[in-house]
């Protein structure tokens, strides 16, 4: 299908973009921390995938290539947003969670986790997202972000450790 898409077959291109879309949005959502920016990133990434498709080397995995494009756009946009005042309605809303009372506690925990992910340094955040939301192996993460495997291991440790420390502090702080 990738070959067909590269040759300009419209159906194959659409199919390929639709295949890439959920994983692009997932990364964008957890990276940016809100639906609004996630949609902007997704649109930009889909256009980039479309325009750069002919440069895609098939020795690489398509999903790895897609995630590389997406994380780069996320990092750029996140840096730009830092200089901007956060927009209204930008707080994380939890997808797929109903408002059943017994789930309130879980929901608070999930919100806290997502906030903590959002606060991670950008490279560590990218590694954590690829590991936890895409189930990428060390090697796949290394290929996507152009990092040595030992750095991937180290970033995963630092990401987890930072979230753990901050969540513990929040609990002990009596929140």
């Amino acid at each position, binding site marked *: 299908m990738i070959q067909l898409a590269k040759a300009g077959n419209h159906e194959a291109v659409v199919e390929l*973009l639709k295949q890439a879309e959920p994983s692009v*949005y997932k990364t964008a959502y*957890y990276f940016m921390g809100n639906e609004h920016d996630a949609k902007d990133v997704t649109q930009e990434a889909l256009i980039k995938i479309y325009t750069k498709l002919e440069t895609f080397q098939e020795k690489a995995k398509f999903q790895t290539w897609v995630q590389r494009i997406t994380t780069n756009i996320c990092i750029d946009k996140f840096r730009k947003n830092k200089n901007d005042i956060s*927009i*209204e309605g930008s707080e994380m809303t939890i*997808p797929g969670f109903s408002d059943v009372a017994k789930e309130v506690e879980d929901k608070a925990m999930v919100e806290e986790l997502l906030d903590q992910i959002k606060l991670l340094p950008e490279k560590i955040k990218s590694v954590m997202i690829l590991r936890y939301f895409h189930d990428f192996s060390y090697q796949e993460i290394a290929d996507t972000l152009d990092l040595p495997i030992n750095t991937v291991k180290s970033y995963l440790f630092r990401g987890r450790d930072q979230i753990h420390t901050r*969540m*513990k502090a929040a609990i002990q702080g009596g929140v």
Partner: protein
Amino acid sequence: LINCQQAKELISQKLDGALHPSDEKRLEEHLNTCSSCQVYQEEMKELHHQLLQLPPAALKESMVDQLLETHLLHEVKQQKKISFWKKKHWIGLTAAAVLLGLWVPLYALISNEFPGLLQGGLKQEGPMMASDSVKQELEINHDTGAQEENFAGIMEATPTENDPQVINEKTDPYAYQVKEENRQLVIYQNEEVIYRSRHWEDDQSVQWRMENQHQLIYTLYSSKGKVVATYQIDLLQKKEEKRKE
């Protein structure tokens, strides 16, 4: 023997199922004697489990479909084709200029008389080709352009550096066209999309104005008519930022 910091790093790798047997053994030895790392391991396991259980983020509707509906992908491709054609054409012109530059003096030497007619012809050929190319290019833009009804602000703009020839084209000054498409402003220049604003939310509405020649200001309003935010777009830099008002 390993210290607590090393043990914590190994605990992290263990969560990924990527711990080498020899490291596993060293970690076990450490954990047997360190209760705080035992607690850390338990808490990390719990955190790992919670992270794996996070609900997946999913789009309510496909953006690929939206892109196809708004013909954005088609537009991007058209833009790409035109820019490719431009580059290719300039390579051709440069090559022609080099060839002319080389051959005119050579021809003059060989023929031993000044071939006025031929030289004049050659001298003119360069500019004529260039100006033809610009006309052709403008025609391409006209052909692909649509006559939308909601065509809004028109501002004259200076041509881009990539198109120095356009300065001499008096017939079609560059203009910005702003349209609302799919909850964002789309800015066209000579029928090509040059910028897309942020998306606004479903229940918001927008008002925009040209602040000056290259600056567009737009304000988002909530369903109750309250100002949500105002952004300014620099159309030369192709950047936008929130206005601190």
